[in-house]
């Protein structure tokens, strides 16, 4: 699974499925927790599975179930769950240059979660144009099915599983930061990007530790953008100062 442009033979969907496997470590334990919490909140097992199939958005599903269980007005439940997902608006446009004009793509955006976006953002540019849809379908189907399957397992046997193997739920989610790191790693070679990404990561980490996990992603990304453009302006001024100095020296000389 090289990060360079790889020959994908005739089965790009298989490559997509293979490359989405690391996501399972993060998806399945969280999906099991969702299934368990949904059942404990008064939803039936199949209702929990249906929510995972249709909504397919981690944090907003937890919020949906918790607010319904707390008796919140339903219009407010819908509004809040959509607000949590608002960060997804930048994902589609970011991968658009690598997508064809096929009418299937908008429907396939159902599978564009945070993690599938991160994977697609790095992998789609490296694939041949004709392989991209197959790869995306393979990757997103693995992620979607693991989310649905994990919810079903959680709804049926979540309590027993978490009691018997508590360590599994603690260790497997580390697959997500490991995957994000691998996707970001090539950018650290550039100094401007290294500083920008470092600042974004620290801000997101601090906000998440303070309990603001959902707000952390857009806020940290906005802070990172400020750092990126701020450094760009500073380095631009430095370059123009040096140019002026050189021009002055040549005139004096």
């Amino acid at each position, binding site marked *: 699974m090289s990060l360079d442009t790889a020959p994908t033979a005739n089965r790009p969907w298989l490559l997509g499925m293979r*490359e989405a496997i690391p996501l399972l470590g993060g998806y399945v334990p969280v999906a099991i927790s969702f299934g368990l919490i949904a059942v404990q909140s008064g939803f039936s097992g199949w209702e929990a599975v249906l929510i995972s199939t249709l909504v397919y958005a981690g944090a907003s599903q937890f919020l949906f179930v918790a607010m319904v269980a707390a008796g919140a007005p339903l219009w407010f439940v819908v509004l809040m769950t959509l607000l949590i997902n608002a960060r997804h608006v930048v994902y589609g446009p970011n991968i658009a240059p690598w997508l064809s004009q096929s009418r299937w793509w908008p429907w396939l955006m159902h599978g564009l979660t945070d993690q599938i976006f991160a994977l697609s953002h790095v992998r789609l540019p490296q694939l041949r144009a004709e392989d991209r849809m197959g790869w995306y379908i393979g990757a997103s189907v693995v992620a979607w099915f693991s989310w649905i399957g994990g919810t079903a397992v959680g709804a049926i046997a979540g309590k027993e599983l978490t009691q018997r193997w508590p360590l599994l739920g603690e260790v497997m989610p580390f697959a997500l930061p490991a995957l994000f790191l691998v996707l970001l790693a090539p950018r650290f070679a550039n100094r401007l990007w290294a500083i920008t990404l470092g600042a974004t990561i620290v801000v997101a980490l601090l906000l998440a530790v303070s309990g603001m996990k959902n707000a952390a992603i857009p806020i*940290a990304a906005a802070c990172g953008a400020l750092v990126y453009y701020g450094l760009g302006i500073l380095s631009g001024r430095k370059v123009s100062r040096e140019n002026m100095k050189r021009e002055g020296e040549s005139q004096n000389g």
Partner: protein
Amino acid sequence: MDSKLWIALLATTIGTLLIRALPLLWMQRHLVRKQGSNSLDAMPTWLTVLGPLMIAAMFGVSLVPSAVSTAAWWATGIGVLSTYLVWKRTNSLGWPVFAGVAVYGGVILLANTVL
């Protein structure tokens, strides 16, 4: 689920899909209008910057262990370092993730045994 809850679920489903699909359609139309130029050049600069930043923010958030403890933070640090080192060596996607999870799990197990 009663009928009102069904409507709320459907509204959330459709709303989530629209949040993901409409911006893509907007960008695709924007790229078609700018046809002839390189599609990456036709993208607004802020958008190309925002993509990696969103991944970095997700990375930062996901670093917080599910069960916060000193051992878990150590495991996170050592796991991140191992992932990076294996990536440097293999330049692949799967092996660094596998190594990171294995090392993270190993440190957690060790801490549970020793402490």
